[in-house]
């Protein structure tokens, strides 16, 4: 079955992003498919590649990155959510003359049309916030 997972919440401050991650990991290991991950609003913070955590704690951003690469997932970050939060790829960094890139290469900046497309083309859409 094809799922789309929408994440509205930042990592660490609430449990929702971790729940979305656990759900995504489980469905993939059960042989289901993820049509698209969509990071929306504060969910954009899950795709920041500059995070590190103390030893023994889980780096949720890096966990998402691993999962996306392991399963070659389509991972989209809402463009208007991302740039306001300092989540930028090379192209956005150049356009806005910013000093650095913060978005994992495993995710792409995308418009809200990608969320509507995902809703249409998935069997199930789940929201985590």
């Amino acid at each position: 079955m094809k799922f789309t997972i929408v994440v509205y919440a930042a990592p660490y401050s609430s449990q929702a992003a971790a729940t979305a991650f656990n759900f995504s990991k489980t469905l993939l290991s059960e042989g289901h498919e993820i049509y698209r991950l969509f990071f929306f609003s504060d969910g954009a913070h899950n795709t920041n590649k500059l995070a590190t955590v103390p030893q023994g704690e889980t780096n949720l951003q890096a966990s998402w990155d691993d999962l996306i690469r392991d399963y070659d997932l389509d991972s989209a970050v809402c463009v208007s959510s991302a740039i306001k939060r300092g989540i930028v790829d090379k192209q956005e960094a150049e356009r806005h003359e910013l000093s650095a890139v913060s978005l994992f290469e495993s995710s792409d900046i995308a418009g809200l049309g990608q969320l509507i497309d995902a809703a249409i083309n998935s069997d199930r859409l789940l929201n985590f916030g």
Partner: protein
Amino acid sequence: MNATQKQTFTFISRTAPYGSNRPQLCLDTALAAAVFEQQVNYLFMEDGVYQLLKNQDAEAIHTKTIGRILETLNLYGIESIYVCKESLESRGLLLGDLVIESKLTNANELKTLLNSSDTVINL
């Protein structure tokens, strides 16, 4: 995207304006669905009905005034707008307090609406 696939999206906006960005997220997503020519239902429920209050002016807090955007919701292809009757009444509000004319809908009608939706975004 395959333009022939038309689905029913229902957006439930349950939160007050300005305190959080959830009303704006819900609206932006509904507008995107309308652009892609999907069937869009928009439901104001619970604190979400406060988004429709007249005389909002968010200038002083440096934000877009949501009430003014919602006034023209039907121009953007979102014509099925519902306001939850119970939510309005429990807040002591009347239809005349709102920026748009819309159907007052009770829980039973809303059940049917949700039941016939393909995707529900509930913010």
